[in-house]
C-alpha cells in the first residue's frame, strides 16, 4: 500500500464537494480491496494467522524420481540411444502446471557408461541438458566437446584408457558418474513438460554402453 493522504482536505468555510468526498473515500476503498501489503501489517501479524493462511504458498514443487539398480546391465537401466542429436536421457518425463513466470529445474541422475569388455569401443563423451516442452535449454548444458577447446585424437575417439574401462575423449565419460543439472528460466502460464536429454559427441557402428540408473527431477515454481 502506498502511503495515502486525504486528497481533498476540507478547510473551514469550504463548500463541501460531493465529488471530493467520494474521491477521498474511494482512495481508501481501493487500497483495502486488494492493494494492501506488508506495510499494512504488524511485524508479528502472521504469528496469529499462520494456521489460517497456510495456503498462501510462495513456491510449488513438482517432483518425481525413478529408482533403478545401477549395478545390473542395460536390461535394468534406461538405455541412452547413440546419437549426435539430442535424445531422451532416462525414462523420467513429467508435466507440470504453472501460473507462469520463473521456474527452477533440478535434475540428478546416475550415469552408467562402461562395459566389462576391455576391447569393446568406449564412450568419447556425452552432453546433457534440461528440455522444457522438448526444447533444449542450453543454459543447463553439461559436458564439453567443443573442438576449439577440447582435443579429440582423430581416429581414436573411441579408444580406451590403460585399464580399458572407459574412453579417452572429452565430455562426460566416466565409468560411473553422478550428474546434476540445474536450470532457471521463465515459462508461459499453463502446462509444460520437463525431462533430461543427452547426445553423443561421436557415434560408432558398434553399440555404446550408456544408460541411466536412478534419476530424480524437481521443478520449483517460484510464484513471483
Amino acid at each position, binding site marked *: 500500500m502506498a502511503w495515502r493522504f486525504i486528497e481533498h482536505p476540507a478547510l473551514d468555510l469550504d463548500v463541501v464537494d460531493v465529488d471530493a468526498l467520494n474521491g477521498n473515500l474511494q482512495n481508501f476503498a481501493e487500497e483495502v480491496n486488494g492493494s494492501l501489503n506488508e506495510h499494512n501489517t504488524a511485524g508479528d501479524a502472521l504469528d496469529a494467522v499462520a494456521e489460517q493462511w497456510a495456503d498462501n504458498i510462495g513456491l510449488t514443487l513438482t517432483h518425481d524420481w525413478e529408482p533403478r539398480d545401477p*549395478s545390473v546391465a542395460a536390461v535394468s537401466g534406461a538405455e541412452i540411444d547413440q546419437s549426435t542429436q539430442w535424445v531422451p536421457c532416462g525414462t523420467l518425463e513429467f508435466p507440470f502446471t504453472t501460473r507462469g513466470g520463473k521456474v527452477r529445474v*533440478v535434475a540428478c541422475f546416475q550415469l552408467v557408461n562402461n562395459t566389462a569388455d576391455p576391447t569393446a569401443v568406449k564412450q568419447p563423451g556425452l552432453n546433457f541438458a534440461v528440455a522444457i516442452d522438448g526444447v533444449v535449454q542450453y543454459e543447463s548444458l553439461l559436458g564439453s566437446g567443443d573442438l576449439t577447446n577440447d582435443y579429440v585424437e582423430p581416429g581414436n575417439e573411441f579408444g580406451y584408457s590403460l585399464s580399458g574401462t572407459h574412453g579417452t575423449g572429452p565430455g562426460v565419460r566416466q565409468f560411473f558418474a553422478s550428474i546434476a543439472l540445474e536450470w532457471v528460466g521463465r515459462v508461459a502460464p499453463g502446462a509444460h513438460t520437463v525431462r533430461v536429454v543427452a547426445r553423443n559427441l561421436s557415434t560408432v557402428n558398434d553399440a555404446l554402453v550408456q544408460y541411466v540408473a536412478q534419476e530424480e527431477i524437481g521443478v520449483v515454481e517460484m510464484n513471483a
Partner: protein
Amino acid sequence: MSYWNLDPIEDGDTLGEENWVTDIVDPALAVINGELDGANFQHRAFSERHVGSLIGQRPVQGEYVVILDHGNHVYEQANATFGAALVAYASPASFGGGDGAGAIATADRVVIGNPAVTGSFVGNGGAAARLEWAPGLLLGMDNGDRVGSIELGLNIEVRDFDIVNETTFVVMTCFQFQLNSGTWYTIDRSERFTGLQDMRESDEPVLYDIPLRCFLRAEDVDDHGDSATDRVTGVRAMIAIVNGAASQSITLGRGTFSGLPYHTEVVDP
C-alpha cells in the same frame, strides 16, 4: 476477499451522522476490523522481510549451508574411527540401507567432512557435511511447520585416492536425514556412484567434483516414522568406497553442503 463496497455520496444527499455512519463508516469498519483475508493483499505481500516468512514461525536453530574444509581430508580404511564402514559398501546392488545412529559412520558409509569429533582426519579442521536443527522440522504442508520439502545439495571435490586395483575404484555418495536426534536414515534414491579409476595419470591430483541433489519429503519420513510427529533434526552427506579393500583411502577437499527448507506445495505428477 472481504470487499468494502463503497456506496458513493450522491448530489442532493443529506449528509448527516446517520447515513455517514451507516452507509460509509460501518461497512469500512466491518471489513477492516477482523475480516481481511489473503485476497485483500497484493501478491507476494508476505514474501517481504518486513513481516518475515510463513516458514520458520516455529523456532528452528541452526544453519542451512556448510562450507567444507578447503584442506585435504584423508579417509583411511586403516583408521579405527571409520575404517570398516569406509570400505563396507558391498556393491551398487546394495542400493540403499546404511541406516544407523553413528555420528561419523553408520554401517557401510562415512560422513563427509571434518567433524568436531576429530583425531581421525588429516586436515586443517573445519565443518562436516552435516546440518543439525533444533527442535527440528516437521515435513509436509499439512503438518505444523509448513515445510513441503528440504532441498539437499552437495558438491565435493575428490583430490586423490589410493587404489589397489587399477580397473575399479568406485565411491558411493548419498544423503541421510535424522529423526528426533536419533537414527540417521539413508535416502536410497540419493545414492550415486562415481568411477574414479583413470581420472588421473600416475601421481597427478584428481580434482574431480561430485555433485548430488535430492528433495527430502514427508514421504521419506513416513518410510521410517510419522511425518506428523517425527522431526527432521539433521541432514548430512555420506561417502563409501564400493567393494573396498583393506588399506584403501580417499582424499577429499573443498565442498559445499546445503539443506534448504521450502514452504512448498508439493505436486506428484
